């Protein structure tokens, strides 16, 4: 192992006695204080985002992983076929799916299944995005919602209605089940 000889800076006597260094330090802190004070009193604090009034929304990167949500396709079909892969892969076990069959007189009867219940417990969710990765139907996506709050545990469980509300319609994806194409 090579020996590294650290070169300590050679300090002048006034630096060792904290005279010039103290003045330098005070200059830096006072400079920052005056600069920020002027920005605040001028009504434009450039450094901090004042959260509830200003939000991140327009600055979020495209790959941001917010709340998971279910999407419908351009014919308003639920893309989810309740294969339960996401429920199986979910590391914190946040997803719970109760599948149901699609009646034979339904236009989408060929799909066979859709979720009857689809709950994501947002207290458990760790926003890992593995549900999105594993979904064979491109039905679940992590959207950009991040301010998810509630006053009770029950309120923090997103049910199927809420998940479709967040997800909305998503067009331009692969449409395996679309007979109209």
């Amino acid at each position, binding site marked *: 192992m090579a020996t590294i000889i650290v070169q300590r800076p050679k300090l002048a006597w006034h630096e060792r006695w*904290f005279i010039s260094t*103290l003045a330098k*330090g*005070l200059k*830096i*802190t*006072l400079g*920052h*204080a005056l*600069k*920020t*004070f002027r920005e*605040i009193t001028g009504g434009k*604090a450039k*450094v*901090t985002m*004042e959260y509830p009034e200003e939000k991140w929304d327009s600055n979020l990167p495209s790959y941001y992983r917010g709340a998971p949500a279910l999407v419908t396709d351009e014919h308003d079909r639920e893309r989810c076929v309740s294969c339960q892969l996401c429920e199986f892969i979910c590391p914190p076990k946040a997803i719970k799916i109760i599948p149901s069959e699609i009646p034979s007189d339904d236009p989408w009867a060929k799909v066979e299944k859709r979720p009857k219940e689809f709950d994501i417990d947002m207290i458990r969710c760790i926003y890992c995005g593995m549900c999105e990765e594993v979904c064979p139907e491109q039905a679940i996506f992590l959207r950009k919602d991040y301010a998810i709050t509630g006053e009770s545990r029950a309120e923090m469980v997103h049910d199927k209605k809420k998940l479709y509300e967040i997800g909305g319609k998503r067009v331009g994806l692969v449409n395996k089940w679309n007979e109209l194409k």
Partner: protein
Amino acid sequence: MAAHLASFDLAFLITSVVKIVFLTFLVILPLVAYSVYAERRFSAIIQDRVGPNRTGIPLTLFGFKKDIQIFGIGGLVQPLADGLKFLLKEDFTPKSVNTFYYWLAPALTMVPALMTCAVLPFGSELDLSFLNPLITSLGGDGFTAPIKSVIADLNVGPLFVFAIASLGVYGIVLAGWSSNSKYPFLGSIRSSAQMISYELSLGLSIVPVLMVFGELNLSKMAAFQDANGWLLLPLWGEGLTVARWVLWVPMLISFCIFTVAMFAETNRLPFDLAECETELVAGYHTEYSSMKFALFFMGEYAAMIIGSGIAVTLFLGGWSIPFAPLIGLDYVAGATPFWLGLLHIGTFFAKVIVFILFFILIRWSLPRFRFDQLMKLGWLYMFELALANVFLTAVLMIICYPVK
């Protein structure tokens, strides 16, 4: 019994009580609360943040549209909210503490800090004789002389302050010991070791000052500086002589040593070894919660305010207005108009506030000293420097003021 009662000077008693209530409850304690707020705001702007700016009077709770923000600056009610929070928090006492000393310690930190303000001259004097017609109509005697703006005009001012202020460390040591936990204990041990390293240079640093003034009465010192120029700004009165400018050098050294020792005495950064969270969780108050913790906090800030007051009185002219004799605002004993008395009080607190802001600025500019560095600085440099300074002042005084 009646003769005994008559020997009490009732006017003195009443004015003393009024002064105590005014200084302690109307000035020092609000100043403590607001210096905590100032610390938060000032440190925020140093770090390019905004700081607590939201607490207004919460009218939205009662159905109004907006909270009231005082003076348009958000957050000025923050100290009230903090105080309320301290009162409402759970007061948790760990099972293994020595209960008596555990409860005594916060009071022992707070009380000495507040007691020292008794000798602090916070103004020249207040001429209240315009109240005399009212008092005589009520059957009293009225004021014969102006009231001095100091609670106790002791002739041992600085000695009293040092004697009482150093008791504050007992609170810290007792808190650390009675908590029965190792981190508070280490913090308190470090605090006491720090105290003995700095108390000596603190005492020695003001000896040259006392030699120049030739007395120990703080209000007379302030009056002297009002007429003859501040100790560190001898630009008028007798200060124009060569002797005062020669003595300016040892006075500056004294001021530097005094200020550094005051930082150590009040446990402020860069000497806050008693409470460094990177090494000691929180320091001596780790096991304390709610109002008992707040008392430690208030004790530290009260000590800071009193320390600033002493430094201002000794070196920066106390309540005196700069260039007072040149602009005709000087103090004449017994004949100061009422408005000038008020102006002196205002000047004193303005200086104290500037000094507190300096305390806060230093806190964010300097890193914390390591323990051995602190002891080395205290024992090897500052003590020697203070001692040499005493001799330097003596020699300079013999040269400048030859004995006739």
